[in-house]
């Protein structure tokens, strides 16, 4: 019956909890991720800034695109990662996945904020205003709120296992509502934000290669940066746990 199942999964919990492997491969992967992330970002953004002409419509402000779009995409993908980790934790109860989810949140939040800021800065010359209640902008703001809530819940609960459970539930329920509110926001107000132009986001693209190539590189760079930061934080989380156990067991 249900309780047996639960206790079984608790048993799995112990044998699956194998952060050692995790620490192993991340230790190897991390330097490469750093190198790729920094390198590609510098290349893409640098190229975009200095070696592409101005856009006929947006003028030189178009250059913000090379920071704005990658960060925006990473912000969104970061939430997907959290969602995946939540599922993984609830199903397989692998502590590492919970820790990765926890580690991803702040990084994603920063990406979101960068997207918001660059967007706002961009909005000033383009739309003549820092902020408009454009559906995409709004749903982006809501995304930031979801990140904040997730982080705050982690902070508020001391028992890590309970915190992992509750935050995972929040992430899953939250993402359902996030999608819903994105749709609702469009329903509520037709915006002035550009349509999507990035292959990964949707199919066709609406900007031409001179802009797109560096943009793509920058996005790859941001992706690797994102992964590097997340894994770094996850590793520190694991180390933190170690410390806590050893100190907890010291008196015993």
């Amino acid at each position, binding site marked *: 019956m249900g309780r047996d199942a639960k206790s079984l999964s608790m048993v799995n919990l112990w044998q699956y909890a194998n952060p050692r492997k995790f620490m192993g491969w991340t230790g190897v992967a991390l330097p490469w991720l750093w190198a790729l992330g920094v390198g590609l970002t510098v290349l893409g953004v640098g190229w975009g800034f200095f070696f592409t002409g101005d856009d006929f419509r947006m003028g030189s402000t178009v250059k913000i695109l090379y920071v704005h779009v990658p960060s925006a995409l990473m912000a969104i993908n970061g939430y997907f990662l959290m969602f995946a980790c939540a599922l993984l934790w609830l199903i397989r109860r692998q502590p590492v996945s919970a820790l990765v989810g926890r580690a991803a949140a702040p990084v994603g939040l920063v990406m979101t904020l960068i997207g918001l800021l660059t967007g706002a800065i961009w909005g000033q010359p383009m739309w003549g205003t820092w902020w408009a209640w454009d559906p995409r902008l709004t749903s982006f703001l809501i995304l930031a709120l*979801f990140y904040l809530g997730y982080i*705050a819940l982690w902070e*508020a*609960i001391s028992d890590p296992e309970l915190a992992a459970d509750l935050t995972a*539930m929040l992430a899953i329920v939250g993402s359902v509502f996030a999608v*819903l509110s994105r749709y609702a926001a469009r329903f509520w107000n037709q915006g002035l934000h550009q349509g999507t132009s990035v292959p990964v986001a949707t199919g066709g693209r609406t900007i031409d290669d001179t802009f797109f190539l560096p943009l793509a590189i920058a996005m790859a760079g941001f992706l690797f940066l994102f992964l590097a930061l997340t894994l770094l934080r996850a590793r520190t989380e694991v180390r933190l746990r170690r410390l806590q156990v050893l100190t907890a067991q010291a008196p015993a």
Partner: protein
Amino acid sequence: MIALLLRDLALALRSGGGFGLGLVFFLIVIVLVPFAVGPERTGLATIAPGVLWLAALLATLLTLDRLFALDAEDGSLEQLVLALPAEAIFFAKALAHWLTTGAVLAVLGPPLGILLALPPGGMVPLFLALAVGTPALSFIGAFGAALTVSVKRGGLLLSLLVLPLYVPTLIFGAEVARRGAQGLAYDAPLALLGATSLGAVALLPFAGAAALRASLR
């Protein structure tokens, strides 16, 4: 489960005034808004539906905080979980919460809209919007309350978790009310609102029950 529903209603009523409270609170908000945003009727009329929705949100938030926390603190929550399936507990308590807040607002809100210069034509849609939408508010909120059971002083945290989840409900609900007030067709947003509500009422009890069980561990 019926017993639990009745018990929660009794508890709510005895915490002073009971059903009356919802109404009075509502009144106060409506009275305060003109102070806050200025008394021009035209301005008020445009924001009236939104304000009524905000009032509903507030009443929900203010009463949610202790929905499960009180029972958890005095040890009766674990007794309940021993006696009833957690899903039933969640459902009963969320329903009781809706009856003491959302239902009251749905019935009494539209007439009070007059104070905010809500056009008479806007009453029926507003009623529909509140009646269909507030269950979602209660159930989503109850889910948040279940997540924060073990957090003392979870008031702000709870609202931080819950309010973003309220966005779709609020958008659709206010849209229904606004269109209704302007005499436009509002069946599309109403349908979406109903869908949101149904989804929340049907699915959240399971998520909430899981959260409750986890926090009692």
